[in-house]
Structure formats: structure tokens, C-alpha cells
């Protein structure tokens, strides 16, 4: 049966499947009828989306033989796996290479679509080229819709930290609004960080809330027979779920980053990025279905709990059009497009990333979370093999790298290859962002041959132009 969503049964149940019994749509699985899908190896997905276009040449795909004037200054280093090399900017991650599959043959088949950051990011979020007849929901929203959650007291689809930046990139599309990603917001390196709306508001303690709940249950009696009305019934169930979320100690525990031992927090790095990666692990461990990290260090932030300013770094994503190898900010004369970043090797960039990512893989592996969690490291595109005259690298959609771990992804593997300069794919296989989407769905055991119906009854197939990357299975 197709997963139909019509307006009448259009309940937003993104944050849990408690109501599946009532609605019959939230938690439908696809076990019935002839299907080609196998039981998924993954139960949860963690996507690290490093936005802006990480230079593959300076990270996962070293090119020591590129012409000197365009060559990355960062030397290849050996990893834990014989024959696999990263650049020295990933020297900590190199020690967990045995847990990773690096796909060096990622490409955007129609670069006109995803060669800008907003469209490219939407491409990553939805796994589908933007601009089709129907704007696709995020992969994470579809997963929440199809699979519900295991942790009722937590949202099933969380973005760390989530800002206004993603307002148009991350979309719930035709799905009910309840499946939209839940954003924590804020700076996780801030010693006073708290997730708004997930705890009781200031001045209302548990006892006062309990008093109110008691009063509510004795006064919410004015309409008898209301239970027969679907919306009223659903609202009652949501009220109970919300009450649980507000008072369940597990909710607060899942988000309580301060409760982590200091050694662990430091292992991830005491900046915004490191703490976001750590929070992602905590949430996955609490049973959240889909966690996405899309973080950049703020200019005015905290490190080790103390305020710190990265002067000139107003927009520290990976869009290194200018001065990519600067040891501080990238604001150069005649520059512009790449201003506001910090050089790729600095702490707010690869410094914090290498530390956080290596910690994440190591930590998740030790906790056994890699058994059934798919971890994906993604970015919209790579960067030009040539260094431009502002010492930066521009967008490059022909070839770039993703990394995967967990949920049966083979460790210590490199998939695909690029030429001497890292410009074009030389391997017989090449994979797209649609293939990445298909990989997630199939790892989760979601049957892509069963369409979701839009409210206007148009059947939508998941990652319809993609095929799961076979080397990751």
C-alpha cells in the first residue's frame, strides 16, 4: 500500500509515533506485498553536513603529484589502513580510517542545479535535485514519516544546531509540518547552552507544572463526546506526549551536554563544532532516528567555556574562494566571495573538524553505536584543482569526496578515484547525491518501490534517480 497522506489524515506526528494507532499513517512499514527491499542494517542515521563545499584535495583525496602551483600544501599522511592516505589535515581521522569508507567519486551530474550553496544544500538535505515538479522533503523528514521514532519523548528528526540559514534549504515539503526537522539552535560551546522549549520555562518547576496538569485534567471536561472527533483525539494525545517531553528526565538528559565527563567533551573539542558532534552522538544513543549536524564556528564564540573571537570570520563555512591557506581570516584585497572564512588549516576549520570527527567515530565505535547507525560525512561539492588568483579555490562539482561509517559499511575502504589533479573521476564508477539518498533509504530498509502520495495524489518515489552505492553494503 502506498503511503498516502491526504488532508484529512494529515496529522503532524513527526516527533513520535505514539499516535500511529489513531492515524494509521505514521508508522506504516513496508513489509507486506512483493518487495525487493531487504531488512535494513541501519536503525538510525547521523549526517555530518559540512556546508560550503569542503576541498576534497586538502582532505580525503590528497594529490601530491598535482602541479606545484596548484598543489595543496598539506602532505599526504598514512592512515591506519595500508594504502590509504589522507592529507595531514585529517591526521587524527587517519587513525580511525579502518572504520571508514571514503567515496572519492562523488559528482553532480547536472552541475547547473546544485552549484550554488542554497540549492546545493537543499540537494544534500533532500537527496534530490531541486527544481523538480514537486519540491522534495528532506531525507530526514521522509525517514521520520516512514519509520517514526524509538524515543517518544524526543523529536525523531533533529538538526544541530539549526539556524535561519537553512530556512529554505531544509524542507518538509508536502509532508505534514510535524515532520519538519527540530532545530536546537544556539551555540553548544556556550557554557549556558540550553535547548529552548524542551524544558519547562523559567519560573515553572516540576511541581508547579504538576499542579497545573492536575487542574487541567479536572477542568478539561466541558465537551463530552469530543473523543469521537479525530482532531480533538489527536490533540489530546499530543498534549500527553508534550507533557511527557517537558517533564521526562530522559529528555533533559539526552540534551544535557554539561553532564558529559570533561574528558569526553575535550576529546571532541571544546568549541561549537566539537560539542555539536558530541550532542549528535548523545541523541543517537538516546534513540533519535535521524540527526543532522550542520555547524560552523561563530565569530564570537566560546572555547573551553571562555569567550573567544575569531576576528574577520563572519561566515566560517567551507566556501574558500579566497586565501584558502590563510592562517587566519580570508578577507583579502579584491576578494569578496570567499571573505569571512578562516583558512582551511585553522582551528575553526579543519582543526576542530579533524578532532571532532575522529572523536565521534572512535566514541561511537567504542559504544557499539556503529553497529546499527549509519554515519555520513557530506558536503555539496568539492573545490577547483586550480588555485585562483586570490589564492582560493572555487566550486567544483565534477568530483568530490564523501565518507561513510557504520551499519555494515565496510571499514578501511576507498571507493573510486580521481585524476592526478583531483579534477575528474577516473574510476569506472561515479556516484551522485541521489545515490547518497538511495543509500540511506536502503540502509534503513525503506522500500523505495513504494511511493509516498502527495496531498494531490501524485506518487513520489524516494531518490527515484538514485541507486544505493553497492560498495557500502
Amino acid at each position: 500500500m502506498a503511503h498516502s497522506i491526504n488532508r484529512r489524515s494529515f496529522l503532524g506526528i513527526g516527533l513520535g509515533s505514539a499516535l500511529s494507532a489513531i492515524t494509521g499513517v505514521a508508522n506504516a512499514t513496508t513489509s507486506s506485498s512483493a518487495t525487493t527491499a531487504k531488512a535494513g542494517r541501519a536503525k538510525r542515521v547521523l549526517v555530518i553536513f559540512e556546508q560550503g563545499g569542503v576541498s576534497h584535495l586538502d582532505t580525503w583525496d590528497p594529490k601530491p603529484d598535482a602541479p606545484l602551483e596548484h598543489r595543496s600544501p598539506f602532505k599526504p599522511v598514512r592512515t591506519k589502513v595500508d594504502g590509504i592516505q589522507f592529507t595531514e589535515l585529517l591526521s587524527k581521522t587517519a587513525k580511525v580510517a579502518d572504520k571508514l569508507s571514503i567515496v572519492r567519486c562523488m559528482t553532480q551530474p547536472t552541475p547547473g542545479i546544485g552549484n550554488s550553496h542554497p540549492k546545493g544544500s537543499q540537494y544534500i538535505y533532500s537527496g534530490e535535485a531541486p527544481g523538480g515538479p514537486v519540491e522534495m522533503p528532506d531525507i530526514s523528514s521522509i525517514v521520520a514519516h516512514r519509520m517514526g521514532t524509538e524515543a517518544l519523548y524526543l523529536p525523531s528528526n533533529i538538526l544541530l544546531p539549526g539556524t535561519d540559514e537553512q530556512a529554505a534549504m531544509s524542507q518538509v515539503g508536502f509532508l505534514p509540518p510535524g515532520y519538519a526537522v527540530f532545530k536546537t539552535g544556539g551555540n553548544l560551546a556556550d557554557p549556558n547552552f540550553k535547548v529552548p522549549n524542551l524544558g519547562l520555562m523559567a519560573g515553572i518547576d516540576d511541581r508547579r507544572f504538576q499542579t497545573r496538569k492536575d487542574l487541567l485534567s479536572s477542568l478539561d471536561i466541558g465537551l463530552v463526546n469530543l473523543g469521537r472527533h479525530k482532531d480533538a483525539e489527536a490533540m489530546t494525545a499530543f498534549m500527553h506526549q508534550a507533557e511527557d517531553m517537558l517533564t521526562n528526565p530522559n529528555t533533559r538528559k539526552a540534551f544535557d551536554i554539561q553532564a558529559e565527563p570533561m574528558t569526553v567533551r575535550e576529546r571532541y573539542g571544546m568549541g561549537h563544532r566539537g560539542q555539536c558532534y558530541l550532542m549528535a552522538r548523545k541523541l543517537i544513543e538516546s534513540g533519535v532516528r535521524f540527526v543532522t549536524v550542520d555547524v560552523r564556528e561563530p565569530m564570537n564564540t566560546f572555547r573551553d567555556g571562555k569567550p573567544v573571537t575569531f576576528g574577520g570570520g563572519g561566515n566560517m563555512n567551507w566556501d574558500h574562494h579566497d586565501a584558502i591557506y590563510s592562517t587566519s581570516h580570508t578577507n583579502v584585497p579584491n576578494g569578496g566571495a570567499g571573505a569571512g572564512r578562516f583558512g582551511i588549516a585553522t582551528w575553526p576549520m579543519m582543526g576542530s573538524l579533524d578532532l571532532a570527527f575522529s572523536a565521534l567515530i572512535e566514541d561511537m565505535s567504542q559504544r557499539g553505536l556503529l553497529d546499527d547507525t549509519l554515519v555520513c560525512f557530506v558536503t555539496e561539492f568539492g573545490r577547483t584543482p586550480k588555485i585562483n588568483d586570490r589564492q582560493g579555490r572555487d566550486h567544483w562539482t565534477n568530483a568530490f569526496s564523501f565518507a561513510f561509517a557504520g551499519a555494515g559499511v565496510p571499514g578501511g575502504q576507498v571507493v573510486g578515484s580521481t585524476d592526478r589533479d583531483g579534477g575528474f573521476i577516473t574510476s569506472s564508477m561515479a556516484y551522485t547525491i541521489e545515490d547518497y539518498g538511495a543509500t540511506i533509504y536502503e540502509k534503513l530498509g525503506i522500500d523505495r518501490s513504494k511511493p509516498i502520495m502527495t496531498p494531490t495524489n501524485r506518487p513520489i518515489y524516494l531518490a527515484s534517480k538514485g541507486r544505493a552505492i553497492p560498495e557500502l553494503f
Partner: protein
Amino acid sequence: MKQISALCISLLISSMGTTGFGQTVPNNGLSISPPHIELTSKRDYVQMIVTSSYGKTVHDVTHQAKWTCSDQKVIRAVNGKVTAVGNGSATISVQAEGRTTKATISVTGFSKPDPISFKFETVPVLTKQGCATGSCHGSPHGRGGFSLSLLGYDPTIDRNSLILDGFNRRTNTIDPDESLILKKPLLALPHVGGKRLLTGRTPCNILRGWIAEGANASLPDVDVKDIELSPGGEHTFHSPFVNQQLRVVAKLSDGTVKDVSSIATYESSHPNVAKVDADGYVTALSRGQAGISVRFLDKLKTVHFTVVEEVPGFKWVERPEVNFIDKLVNQKLKQLQFVTSTICTDSEFIRRTTLDITGSLPSPEAAQAFISSRDKYKRRSLIEHLLNSEAYARFWALKLADIMRVSQQKMPNGGAERFSDWLVDSIRRNQPYDAFVRELLTAKGKVNQVAPANYFVAIPTVEERTEITSQIFMGTRVECAKCHNHPFETWTMRDYYSIGAVFARTNINQGSLILTNEGESYHPTTHEKMSPWGTPKSINLDNTDRRIAFSNWLTQKDNPFFSRVEVNRIWNELFGKGIVDPVDDFRSSNPPANIELLDALAKEFVSSGYDRKHIVEIICNSQTYQRSAQASPLNTADDTLFSHCKVRMLSAEQLKDAIGTVTHQLPNLESSMETETSLIQKLEERRSNFKSRLGESQASLSTLLTLADHDSIQLNRKLFEVKNRMAFATQRPYPERNEFTIAFGQPKRDTACTCERQSAPTLVQALELLNGGAAYDLVLRGSVIYEPLDNSTLIDMLYMSAYSRHPNAAEQATAMKFLTSAKERKSAITDLIWTIINTREFVFQH
């Protein structure tokens, strides 16, 4: 089959009168339709229908009857399907229920070749078997490398795909049985789509035969002009008679008439109510209404069935009927055996009606006055009073502004304000709806002077103008037809681009909406230049505003969409559900829940001179509108026929203002005119003050001084806020969106679909109510207002504000105990207000 038989059918239909059956039905007896047929080729057939009647009741006996042919060398008949066996004439006699009737049949041309037509047989069969649906090979990328046009809208695509692509494996004319399009659906090879063909059945024979004959895919320049359904119209099944055979006849543009009952596609809108098999045999299953849609190529028609079942314990209770609405709603309820709920209380009535007409809760004073009034006509007076309020104009303008996508981004430079003012004004002076639409659709000139021109500013492309105009005024989602014929309706790509041609010459240039002399709309696949929809052929297109002809077509009295769509929208606003639902999805495969009601309302709308206020008024005065939300076991299963009031969430704006009303944080709308007058007076005083000090000769200087005067500026600002009702969300056509209103479904206004406004509850809403800052801030401020009151008055005031009623004894006691036993009175009051706004009685309209 020759045309004569079809002619015969249509003559019979017109002479049928009340039963609506496409056949003669004597008062008592058996009738067969058609009574005479001529089969003109080897494969020609006719699906006959036999009807038995007893007085006024009729039922189908086609399958139960015994069919006897006078000459088995001429014809054969199975379940009423008559096929040729050889040339000659024969009589067929039919026996059922102890009665007999006859039909005569002649067969000619049996020995001449009868090749299978690709366009009129092969392509329809691919649709019928489900191959060409949007979820299979009809999807934009096909399935498994094989793609067909969606429901056969483009036979050229199908021809290429079947014959040219696939290395000749799909259609193998040398060894037809090796063709993939047979082996896969017969499951001789694995097929993801499962078994789709049965050996020996007509669809399989057509596909195989077509290949065996050489897979000739020539595409003659002939189209289907119309299809004819027998029986058409509306029918009722009364147990134990639960079946009806259908016949489908296609009329081609070359004059050919052809029975296509075996290759048409049948679909039920409510398969739980009535199902239909591949041969067009309908079986009723349970109480309710279902439409059976029949498609043949790009033509689609629907026949409606009502299934009546005896409900144990059902006894119709006559209740007074105020107007035709009650009569027609009750007629349907009685037929389907649902009782009506009783009439709502005065408290429920004033709360419901005030919310529906003005968007706000009634003030506690208004509620108190209403429930204690003994005026026999107080409900009628209240409706009239509310409809004459400024709040009505503003709240209903908000609804229009939603679907017309009013926002400061889409209508920049003051356009949103101007357009909104124009909307409010149109509703305030109750401008006839046809005049309103003509003024809107033919607007031209400077957008900062001609307010309605901003409609086109918000929808700058021809596509948007086509889709949004059709959706708002024709209730039709034509956007599907942009790329392929509409899968559930007869809208074609030609229609889409014809409507496009209406707007192809409307441009925005330097702040002006102008008409240009060039600009055409072309069909994307045939590249044909489309003539604009609604413009008569005789008119020279070069010197005319195409939009005028279109608006005239749209607003003429017999337009099938215009008045129905608007009355249905009004109905939807007042009942939380349209008679056609969703309101912008009118199509024959989505039938109205009560077609007589919709038609009567539309007729009333036209004869009242497109008076929107009148329609709201008659609906609100009906008993149907005034029914209680309390369902009984005998109507709780009904959610389409309006037997009881539908409980629904307040809209985002209503809820925001409702919390404002309960916490007494909103100005009183009843006295806002007085406030306005007094502010204007104060401003005038200020001005005359300057005037008197400066003297008459310095008049202009005094005006200038007033402009710069601090107090005057404050007064002006206050006046602006009062006039534009800035404190309210329901009173402004484009209220800002915030976390609270977004959570409760306030639309972004990206589309013209009312579905953009989300009305179903979500967890985020529960969190906002229980723990959100926006609501709680109002609660805190409200507690200050309630604090000075003694406990009993406080509780009564709170209940009157929130629910327009007094608390009952139990509620009074609980609340009283809570307040008196609290350590801290102020926070106890806060808790009590918080509790009230979290109850379902508050959050829902009922």
C-alpha cells in the same frame, strides 16, 4: 456498431425524465437497452443492460437474467455482452424475475478484416491494465527502463517506447508471445508490477492481436469527442439489489460510435462503499456515496451511486426546517439513515458564530447579554449584527488574502496594503462577487493606483496566473496539465495552455500593469499556438484584452464552476469542510457530498446577484449550521453530510486573538469606532490649539506644526493602530507570522491552495500551548486584570470570556477550591487561566 444505436440511446435518455436511466423503463416490467443493435465487424460488441422495475423502483438484472439467442451462429451473449459469431440477424430474449423482454441484433461485415487500432484499443488497454499510471510506467522516468505517457495522453511516446525502444523485445511481431509487454504482465518473466494480464481476456487479446497483426501504430487524425455512460447520472442502491452493469460508448470525431465497455478504465471514489470490476459491473458494499469514474483516453465521466442500508434503531425525527439548506441536507440524511443532532445552546451559538463571522471570541459582556436575552429572534439578529461589523469584512478579507498570496514580499512598495484595503472594502460594501472578480482579473494601470492590479504582481508568470486563477475561481488544480493531461480529470494540456493564452499579454512594466501586442501561449509538445480560453473565435485577438472575454466566460450565470466554487468555499469556512472537499479540487471523480445542496446554493448565489453576505446569512440561519457538536450513535459515523457540527481547531489567528480576549489584552472591537472618533477629535483639538495660537493667517504653518508635534505624532500612531486593528491577528489581511502562528498553521502564502493552512493538530502546537512564551506572556498579563476580582466573579468572568458560558457547579467548585487553597493567589490565578486556554473546549470550535 452503427451510429443509429447510439442515437437511439441518446434519444431515450432525453425522454427519460425522472429516473435518469438511459433506457426505457415501463412502470412494471423488464426493459433492455439498447433494444436494437447492429454489429458491423468481427470484433464489434455491445454491452446490453437489463432493468427490472416495480412502480417507481428499478434495479439492474443484467447478470441475473437468462440470455437466449435465436441463432447461435450469429451472436453470443454473456452477462449482457453481445459479440458477433457470424453474419445474419437474430433475436435475443432475456428472462428475469418471471418476466421476459427481447432485442433484435444484426451482424454484418463479419468476414472483412478488423484490425486492432493502436490509438483506440492498444493505448486504452495499457491504461486499463494499470501500466500507464503515475506509479508505474506512466511516471516521468518510467519504471524499469520502460516508460509510457501518463494514462495514454501522448500515443507518440507510447509508440516509440513500445516499438522503437527496447531492441524490439517489447513487441515481437515475428513471435508475438515472446513480446515483453505480454511476458512480463503475464508473469512469464519476473515483473515488479505483478500480474497484469489474464490469458483469454479482452485486454490480453487486444495486446497480443495488435502485435500479431504487425504492431501497426499509425496515428489517425481522429479524436474521441465524447463518451457516453449508461446509465449516467445518479442512482440509489437499496438492499438486496446491489449491482449495476455500466456501458461506455465512445463517439469519435469521424462519426464512428463504438462500445468500449471492455477497454474503458473504471475506478471507485469510495471502494468501501461501492466497488467496480474491470467490465464495469458495480457492486454496492456499504452505506454511503461513491462515484464510479470511467475513463477512455482523455475523456472521463462519473456516475454517482448512493447506497442505502437499513440501520437498526433508526427513526427519522422531524425537526423544523428554516430554509432550503435544511430541506436538502435532511433529505440526504434521511435517505442514508443518519439522524440530526439537536440544536446547539445559545452559548455555543454565539461563540461559534462570532468566531466564524468575525474571527474573534465574543466579549464576555456580549456573551452574557446574548444568553440572557429573551428575544425570540436573537440568533437572527446576532448574525445580522455580526455581518454588518467591520470585523466581518476584515476577517473574510484575510481568507481571500491567503489564497491571493498577499504579502509584503510578493506585493512590495505598499502593494500589500493597497490590495488588502481593496479586499476589505469590497467585502465591507458587499460588492457582488462577479463584479469583484471582473475588476480583479481585468485590472490594468499603475499598481500604486489600481489596487487589484497587485493580484498580478504577486503572480508574475503566465504559469502562476493560469494555475492560481483556475484554482481560486474554478476550484480546479490544472497544474497537473502543465506537463501531462490531468490524471483524475479531463483537463488536458491544451486546456492549460489555452488558459495561459489569456494571460500571455499581461505584463508588468515600470510599476504598471500593461497589455502588450505580442505574447502567445504554445503547446509544449505540438507547438500549436493556443487560442485564449473563453474568447469566441470571431474576435480579433490582436486588439482585445483577452482577460475580458475570459472573465465574462467565468462569471456568466451558467459557468459550471464559478458560483459553485464560491458557495462551497463559504460553506467550508462555516462548517470546516466543503460540500466538495477539498474546496479547490472540483472534478467529477471527487463528487459533492450533496449535489442538490451545492446546486441550490449556487442558484441562490446567482439569483441574489452574487451576494456573498446573503449566502453566509442564510447558512448561519439554517438549523444545519446551528446543530450541536454532540454526536449520537445514529450519526457519529457521518463526517460528510452535516448531521452534526464538526469540531475543529481554531485557526492560528483565531487562537492568538482568543487568548488575547480571555486575558483581556485586546481592545474591545465593539467600541473601537468610538476610540477612533475620540482620537480624531483629540487630534483636531491639538490642531485648533495651534491655529488659535498662531491665528488664521498662519493656517499652513499650524498644519505643519501639528505634523511635528510630539503629542500629535503619538495620537496619529495610536489612530493608525486602532484603525488598522494592529493588536489583532484576525483583523488584518496580512498579519505577521511568528513562532506561535506558524506552529498553528498560518500559511506562508506560497500557493493558492487552502490546504496550505494546516488545520490538523501537531506536537509543536501542544508544546506551544503548554510551554510557549507567546501564550504565557498574555496569561501573565491577564492575571493582573483578573486579580482584583473576587474569586466567584473571577471564575465566572473567565468562563464567560473563554467559553461564552457560566461554569457549572462542579467547575465552579473545583476552580474555587484551587484559588482558595493556593498559597499565592496571583500565581494560582495564572495557573487557572493557563489551564483554561489549554482545554479542548477552548482550543476547538464547536
